């Protein structure tokens, strides 16, 4: 009998079908990898199993019984724990307090601190990690924080563990330790659902592999019967040819960054970014690779006048020194930035498509401070048409659009300002494959028109596909630069995880 059974599960969000008629069995004791591109529905499926999403169509059975969780508490009671990509820890509290959060040991309402500390220490020893359980979580590295989440799951006696891209923020050594922990968990008989799109991990750990694409289950294969190549092919559905994006002519020098350093007050590393230098030419797409927390976003923020602290070093735009203190100065100088977290940093969810598109360009569409209704409609309409945004009308709420179309609106917002430099911070996160391919073509087209584009991405294949050059960041330092011909996934990962090549100067 299967341990978990998904039967015809469908989940729609406004404007998108996240899951469509997915049926899938998970066997007792196996490590089942779920892979797929961003936006394929992996996380939605796992959120259903862990009780985060409660309204869906279809049935989920656990140990043969149909279940309908009303929240994560129900899922935990059924022995299911999830380790989210974004960790759910209270950073101000101690390790032990986090592990037993909501289930504190107590007598008559008074905490039994020592008992909790001991129990937490025992759990962590089992995971071969040796840090003080009374330490505050904020003081720990991401890799260690993740182990706290796992310890929490163990303390719940969970026998089903969901891991959502657990290695995305880890160094190689930390990832190795995590794999050893996973081995131990498996020996204890824990069933693991492992979400990832990294082939080497999947083929190292998994017994079976399921592939989701655009909300549908495409295939489930035993590891022995398949190859990374086949899985990749199933994930993407078709190959995006890198060659079609090659052969752009590199224009004049547009942007030069010299020894840029961004301080990090109160942190052991002291610098978010240290001595970064690179150039960007017209007609060029420059990729910035790096793990989570390597400083990709911070670097773009410096270039866009949105840095949290004043930075050191020089930025030359078209040969002239610039230092932007506010994004408006960057905008006026012809620098545009499409931010990473669409919902949090980009969209105005109470506004419609038109208002979202024109917000950065409104002054130009107005006379004496009054917005010209007609010129605004026209500007928004032209962008929607040019980028082929699929929207019923300009007055549709932006939230009713799919992720890919929202992203196009945000890019359109900045294209209206007619920038020379376009900074794209992980623009394809959470959008489906078809929309991704469209975005790649758009970037290529813009570069051919003479823009200089800087692109960051959490997905290396993406950078390898569209970029002319790729620089690699590791812990705030620039550790390598590759041309399109030199670059490979392996080389980039090496540069991103092995640390600074140059010796530190402080």
């Amino acid at each position, binding site marked *: 009998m299967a341990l978990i059974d998904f039967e015809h599960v469908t989940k729609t969000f406004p404007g998108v079908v996240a899951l469509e008629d997915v049926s899938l069995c998970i066997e007792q004791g196996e490590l089942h990898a779920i892979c797929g591109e961003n936006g394929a529905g992996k996380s939605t499926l796992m959120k259903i199993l862990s009780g985060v999403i409660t309204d869906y169509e279809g049935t989920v059975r656990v140990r043969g019984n149909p279940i309908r969780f009303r929240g994560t508490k129900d899922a935990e009671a059924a022995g299911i724990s999830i380790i989210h990509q974004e960790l759910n820890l209270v950073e101000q509290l101690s390790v032990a307090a986090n592990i037993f959060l909501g289930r504190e040991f107590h007598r008559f309402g008074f905490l039994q601190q020592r008992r909790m500390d001991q129990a937490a220490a025992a759990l962590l020893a089992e995971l071969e990690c040796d840090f003080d359980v009374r330490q505050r979580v904020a003081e720990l590295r991401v890799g260690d924080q993740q182990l706290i989440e796992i310890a929490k799951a163990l303390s719940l006696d969970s026998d089903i563990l969901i891991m959502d891209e657990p290695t995305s923020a880890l160094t190689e050594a930390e990832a190795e330790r995590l794999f050893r922990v996973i081995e131990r968990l498996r020996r204890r008989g824990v069933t693991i659902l492992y979400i990832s799109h990294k082939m080497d991990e999947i083929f190292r750990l998994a017994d079976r592999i399921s592939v989701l694409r655009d909300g549908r289950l495409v295939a489930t294969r035993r590891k022995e019967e398949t190859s990374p190549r086949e899985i990749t092919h199933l994930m993407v559905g078709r190959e995006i040819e890198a060659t079609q994006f090659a052969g752009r002519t590199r224009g004049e020098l547009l942007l030069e960054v010299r020894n840029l350093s961004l301080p990090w007050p109160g942190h052991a590393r002291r610098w978010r970014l240290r001595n970064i230098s690179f150039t960007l030419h017209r007609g060029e797409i420059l990729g910035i690779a790096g793990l989570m927390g390597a400083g990709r976003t911070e670097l773009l923020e410096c270039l866009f006048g949105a840095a949290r602290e004043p930075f050191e070093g020089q930025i030359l735009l078209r040969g002239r020194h610039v230092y932007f203190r506010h994004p408006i100065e960057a905008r006026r100088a012809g620098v545009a930035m499409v931010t990473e977290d669409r919902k949090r940093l980009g969209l105005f969810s109470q506004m419609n498509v038109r208002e979202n598109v024109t*917000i950065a360009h409104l002054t130009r569409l107005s006379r004496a401070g009054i917005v010209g209704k007609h010129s605004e409609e026209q500007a928004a309409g032209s962008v929607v048409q040019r980028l082929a945004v699929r929207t019923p009308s300009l007055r549709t709420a932006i939230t*009713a659009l799919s992720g890919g179309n929202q992203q196009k609106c945000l890019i359109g917002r900045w294209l209206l300002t007619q920038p020379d430099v376009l900074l794209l911070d992980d623009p394809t996160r959470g959008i489906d494959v078809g929309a991704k391919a469209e975005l790649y073509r758009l970037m290529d087209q813009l570069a051919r028109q003479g823009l200089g584009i800087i692109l960051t991405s959490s997905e290396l294949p993406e950078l390898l596909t569209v970029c002319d050059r790729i620089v690699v960041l590791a812990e705030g330092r620039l550790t390598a630069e590759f041309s399109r011909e030199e670059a490979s996934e392996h080389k980039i990962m090496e540069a991103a995880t092995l640390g600074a090549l140059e010796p530190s100067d402080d």
Partner: protein
Amino acid sequence: MNLSPRDRKAVGSSRRLMWLGLQSNEWMLAAAVVAVVVLSAILDVHHTYWNNPRLSALDIARQTAFLGIFALGAAVVIIAGGIDLSAGSMIAFSGTICATLMVLMAPDVMSNPHQLVGGKLVERPLGWQVISVAIAGTLLVGFLIGTLHTWLITVVGLPPFIATLATLVGLRSLSRAICESVTQAVYDAKSTQIQIFDPAFRYLATSVWIPVLIFLLLAVLLGILLRATVIGRHIYALGGNEQAAVLSGIRTDRVKWLAYCLGSVTSSIAGILYIGDQSVADPQTLGRGYELNAIAAAVVGGCSLQGGVGTVPGTVLGALFLRCVIDGVAKIIKTGADVYEGQIVGVVVVIAVAFSQFRRGVRQGRQIFPGAMGVFALVALSLLAAVLAMLMAEQMARFVPGAQNLDARGTGMSLGLLVLVLLAGWKWYESRGR
């Protein structure tokens, strides 16, 4: 454009019904205003609205204008994602400043306001120069306080709630201190209030048309600002998503500056009108608690305290609705509106917001009275209804002719019981569905 059925559904749900520039919920509010007026006209034993429509309308219009002027300011701050708790004290402070300026410029006229002309005692005029300088100075002070708020919020980094709470507490005591020390210095006699008798100045407030005109003018200007200008769009953007607004190249600090200045300057205008209306600037009582009336009018009118949502017409209707309910209750139970104002505002706000929240919540299958908390909540609501009914019935028995035999205790208990039964029935219904 190619649309799937799903897309079409999305359009339907996102397009808001709009006629005459009013959204559907604003039409509902307008209908509620009419309902309240009709109900008051019927339940009032003297049928004041019916017998004397012109005077009633003028009274409500004037009261609405007074409240509406600073409610509009509060609305702009709320739409910009902030909150201004200082309105009440700001009114007292502005009134005090205005009166103090008059005392400083015309001490003699202010202390001996009457003179004999041809055997008749008439008020001595202050002169238009004094009045206009006093008003201009007061508005300037409003602008400066707004600037102070913005500085505290954007540079010092205080949350808007704390920054304006500090001025709410601080400005009232400062007003008292200024009033006492200025009267001490000028007249050598400490006074806790300053009386103003100048007929021209008082006409500003006691006439109906000037406050109403100021209110309408302000409404039109702010309506244009919010709906048609770049700054207006930036205010909505700031309130909707501050980080995204900064990253879109909006000078959010400047937008905030404008919003908080509008908040305090409108309070200053109201402060000037209030002292004219009451012919005295009494910093202890002037505008006490009015900040909540302003926020209530904005919220009833559809502004979201999360920011980014709200309109000028909605706020105008919100202020009108609030004043109509307060006035209507006063007409029905024949007692001063001030006694019941707080309760009425509280109840109206809860009902208006609850109505819009529950409409969405119930559709999504959320419980209104979940678990043990729900049991106590419905008990609390029933008790509240019983107490209110009892108080009102008692008032009516005392003052309303023909209602002397109204049994206050019986009315309160039976109404409370009715509410309890209805709410308990609802709880049973919604918990059965689980």
